[in-house]
């Protein structure tokens, strides 16, 4: 009686990680609903823009921007969501706010290069979709801008 119980438990324990690994591969392989639109960028500049966006992501992480700001609603709730900030012609404004601070946001001493990279990251995020929703009639599964 006891031995079969141990076997059943072991099978149930192992089954879940197998399901987990299969599901993780599914996330990797299924096409995303709204792929990043790098095709709009001239081919010769694409890799450079992507590299700068990756460096910008490092800036985002190093300065812990996510403690106050969110991307697609995931992150802090103290400041605004920054998913589509880059699309609203706010580039110059963002640079000023980052440098000088505003309301509860402290001033950050970012270099010009770091700011450029951060903007490249936000532009890449902006190209990937649309958030927050603007109406109750918005598609519940998100939409490409």
């Amino acid at each position, binding site marked *: 009686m006891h031995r079969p119980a141990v076997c059943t438990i072991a099978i149930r324990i192992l089954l879940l990680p197998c399901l987990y690994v299969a599901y993780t591969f599914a996330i990797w392989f299924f096409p*995303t609903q709204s792929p990043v639109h790098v095709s709009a960028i001239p081919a010769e500049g694409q890799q450079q823009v992507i590299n700068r966006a990756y460096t910008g992501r490092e800036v985002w992480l190093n300065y812990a921007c996510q403690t106050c700001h969110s991307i697609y609603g995931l992150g802090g709730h103290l400041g605004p969501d920054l998913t589509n900030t880059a699309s609203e012609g706010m580039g110059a404004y963002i640079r000023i706010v980052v440098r000088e601070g505003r309301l509860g946001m402290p001033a950050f001493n970012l270099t010009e290069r770091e700011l450029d990279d951060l903007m490249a990251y936000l532009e890449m995020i902006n190209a990937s979709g649309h958030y927050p929703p603007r109406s109750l009639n918005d598609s519940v599964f998100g939409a490409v801008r």
Partner: protein
Amino acid sequence: MSRRPLVLICVPLICLALSPLFGIGLAIRSVLHTQPSWLPQMQVLQPLHTLASVGCILTGICALFVLTSDTLGARGAVFVRRTVSMLLVLFLPLAAGSILMGAGSGKEYLTWAPVLTPILILVFLVLGASFVVNIDAFTRLSPEGTWLIGVGLVCIPLGLIEASSYLLPAVAFDRELSFEWHGLDIVFAGWNALLYGFGILIAGGKGKPLRAPWLFILAAFGFASTFGHHHYFSPQPQVIKIIAVIASMLAALSFVKHMRAAVRFNATASSNGPVTPFLRAAELWTLVAFASGILLAIPQINLVLHGTTAIVAHTMGAMIGVNIMLVLGGLTFYLRESIDEACARRLKRYVTWIHIALVLIWLDLATAGTIKGLLRFEHSYASYHLQVTRAMYPLLILGPVLAVPLLLMCWEIFRIAIVEPSRANQAGQVDN
């Protein structure tokens, strides 16, 4: 029974005592929108608060595992106790130091320097190895509790690895959030499974059989796939989002069954034991977190409430009401021989106090979240954020109202674990 693992009992209590202190700092910063110089910056406070909360749950799990192993007379229990204590004592100060030095991950929940995550993975590998060696002993106690503990021990390292996958250059922007949140959800699923497993053991689930196969299949389906509802809007694969909706809605079946079990438990459980208030609290908040999770997964509701403090309310209810209560209940269970009637009454009072404070904070955060969710359809952030902030003013009072019973609870359990045995030792020396 062998000597108490004092380090492992004290570490989660210290983490729990620090967490609300950082939380009050966060509330002050969030509500006042000023930069008082005496308070650390948000990018330090928030990761430290998260580290303390996550640290309390993870170290609490380690403590419960070691205490259970001691009770079972498990093989290698002393080695596990020493190794895990050493690794955790190494990990926590380094993690806090990395955040203070500005070298944190900049990510949610796993806020410490990513280079430290392998230490945590190693802790769970050690516990996993000990579990495999002693699976017979665990199974005799409760088959149901055993598989939950086993699943949790496998999930936490897997989730930690996946949530750190953003470090790989091959992960593109459009999938990064999916991997990060799937990984985090697996960590949450892992620690929930572990704590519910220990919950079954401390509730006296001797020989409790494995649950019915259909419930297991339902749990297995929901386990890996409900995470997608965290961000229907982000560019994750459409099929994953649809599966997440189906899995989340099917969880309603499990919710109904759980509700009936909770009612049965409340009707039959003795109200005198010091552990019962913790288990009842965990049952109640499981239902709240379960119901709010299902509601938040309904796409039309998600559209309004995702990305607001309503999600914080759901998370706080689950972490404090369920996870922390099970950790504290478990510690109380293993220290019950040192608990007298007056102490049990005090613990019960603190649990009630935490309930009330948590309900009020939950309502406040949900209200602020709903206001934000509705206003952002028509208004810009600049025009609605003051109204949302005003809705959070009660947090300035409610934060300390929740922090005080948590701190008193920590002190009470600390006193039971540390002070009482040394008094007993002194008394023993006098007698000799």
